[in-house]
């Protein structure tokens, strides 16, 4: 049977190299290159990208040089020290702790938790939505009931209760606990797109080409909803920074003695701090705003890059 196909064409093994080269010359640019072109075409997004990368690297590396136990000790000499002095760049709080150092370590904690939470909850939500939407029928029905159940649980209250009950927990366990409650939005979104995508003929063609369900889900359908996944993941990342900070702000996030952006902003709970000692809370608040804005800019560019019709970058270069 292989013979038949060879007989029907004049192309033989000798031509392979030459034709492959011809094809490579005409090849469409890779996705990474398209994305880079898109960033180059959008200056604010480019700046945002660098701010994000630089900032995340900075807090991770800088926090390695900070002795956290020593940092969180009370130091009476520094009681509400003014900012912009050689010893206290951003001043100090009521315990005389350096805000600059707390900000670095706190950012690292908050960002790490947000990244961990985003990776775990998005991965789970995406898989849940893909499987539910692809198989449909009874599988979908059962999986959606689990979804409904998770949705009706009062989330914040449950998290607070769990955190209060568990005697010892740290950043990792907190991330895992939060992950249980933050996959539903993603899963619903992915499911609805997967339902529509599964009806398309290319999925039928893959089935009749003998491709397994698992491969169809992750290698055929998932790339087609990648723009949705990218946008949703970046937005969840921005949102997840808020989740941990919000909890810490309320006093139910990271345990005592672990600084985070939330505990820093919590300084604003004290009216005296709001008016008199602005440096105790303002830098952290500004940082969150800048981070979230940057992330959403980057997310927008990624969405454009994955959607040919919206591109601004020139594909040719």
């Amino acid at each position, binding site marked *: 049977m292989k013979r038949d196909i060879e007989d029907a064409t004049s192309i033989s093994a000798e031509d392979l190299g030459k034709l*492959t080269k*011809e094809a490579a010359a005409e090849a469409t640019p890779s996705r990474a290159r398209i994305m880079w072109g898109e960033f180059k075409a959008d200056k604010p997004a480019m700046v945002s990208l660098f701010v994000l990368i630089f900032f995340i690297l900075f807090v991770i590396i800088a926090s390695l040089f900070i002795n956290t136990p020593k940092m969180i000790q009370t130091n009476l000499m520094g009681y509400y020290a003014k900012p912009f002095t050689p010893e206290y760049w951003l001043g100090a709080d009521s315990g005389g702790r350096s805000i600059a150092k707390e900000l670095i370590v706190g950012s690292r904690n908050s960002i790490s938790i947000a990244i961990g939470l985003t990776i775990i909850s998005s991965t789970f939500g995406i898989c849940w939505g893909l499987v539910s939407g692809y198989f449909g029928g009874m599988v979908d029905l059962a999986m959606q009931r689990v979804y409904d159940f998770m949705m009706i649980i009062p989330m914040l209250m449950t998290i607070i209760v769990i955190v209060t009950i568990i005697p010892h927990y740290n950043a990792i366990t907190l991330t895992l606990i939060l992950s249980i409650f933050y996959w539903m939005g993603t899963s619903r979104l992915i499911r609805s797109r997967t339902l529509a995508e599964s009806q398309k003929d290319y999925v039928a063609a893959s089935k009749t*080409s003998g491709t397994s369900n698992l491969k169809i889900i992750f290698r055929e359908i998932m790339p087609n909803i990648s723009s949705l996944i990218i946008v949703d993941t970046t937005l969840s990342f921005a949102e997840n920074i808020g989740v941990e900070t919000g909890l810490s702000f309320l006093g139910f996030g990271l345990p005592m003695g672990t600084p985070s952006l939330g505990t820093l902003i919590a300084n604003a709970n004290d009216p005296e701090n709001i008016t008199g000692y602005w440096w105790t809370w303002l830098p952290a608040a500004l940082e969150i705003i800048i981070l979230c804005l940057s992330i959403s800019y980057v997310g927008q560019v990624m969405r454009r890059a994955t959607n040919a019709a919206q591109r601004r970058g020139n594909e040719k270069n």
Partner: protein
Amino acid sequence: MSLIEIKDLKVHYPIRGGFWNRVVDNVKAVDGVTFNIEAGETYGLVGESGSGKSTTAKAIIGLEKATSGSVMYKGKDVTKGENRRKLDYNHDVQMIFQDSLSSLNPRKRIEDVIAEPLRNFEHLDKEQEKLRVLQLLDIVGLDADALYKYPHQFSGGQRQRIGVARAVATHPKLIIADEPVSALDLSVQAQVLNFMKKIQRQFGISYLFISHDLGVVRHMCKNIAIMTRGRIVEVGTRDDIYNNPMHIYTKRLLAAIPETNVNHRDEHRKHRLEIEKIYQEQQSTYYDKDGMAFPLVKVSPTHSVALPPHLAKEFEQQSENEGVNV
């Protein structure tokens, strides 16, 4: 023995509704379809949109679960999943889809699109696989530079040829072509059909050729089945259908073939309106009280028609009289 035998195939979709989401009714998309496809022939399945052609195709290839009936291939009923796996059924039976854009994954390069069935059914090494893809592209008249492009970079006709290349990749015995040219311009239609015919001659492939247009089917098929409302109303050779149509639905489809000769346009239009009038008048007699077609009656050795009971009786008596020499 036929290549594939479809026997009393039914596909009913449940309609759910009411408070408990129970099955309240069925859509009888396919309701008792029987026909055989011989090796190397092109079998035409024709009917208006919504008559159940695609559902029939999907049930035959295993994309849709059959409610009842059987599809026999190599002596096994391939409506059952385990039989399909045992026979490597989709190595032998492939499909070409109507919407060429939707049937090619927009995220995959043409090389990966065409190689997909090869990767699953024939384990070639990288070089051999690429060579085969290039040969397949050549067979459907596309250049090697298509290899690393994406589907949206091609025209409709080119995309459909890529679909054809993918379908013949594993050298199947049967290709189900579900309205392969309906979405294409008239000029491009002929081109794609010619490639399909060329491939059939070279590889001896059978086609189940689905169309809503009897004009297209005329050039492709030796045997034709006319389908409406989930049932076949007339089966016969090309000659039976075009020169001796007996069911009013077939007559109406024939009248709907566009007339290309400008001089006869008016005449043709008058003829079509006449047929339409007869169709409206006789519609009630040609379908039963539920609007379904009647069982098929043999009117000649090759020709069967779903005639209404009073006409059917005549033919039965006739064939009984002639029965001795048939």
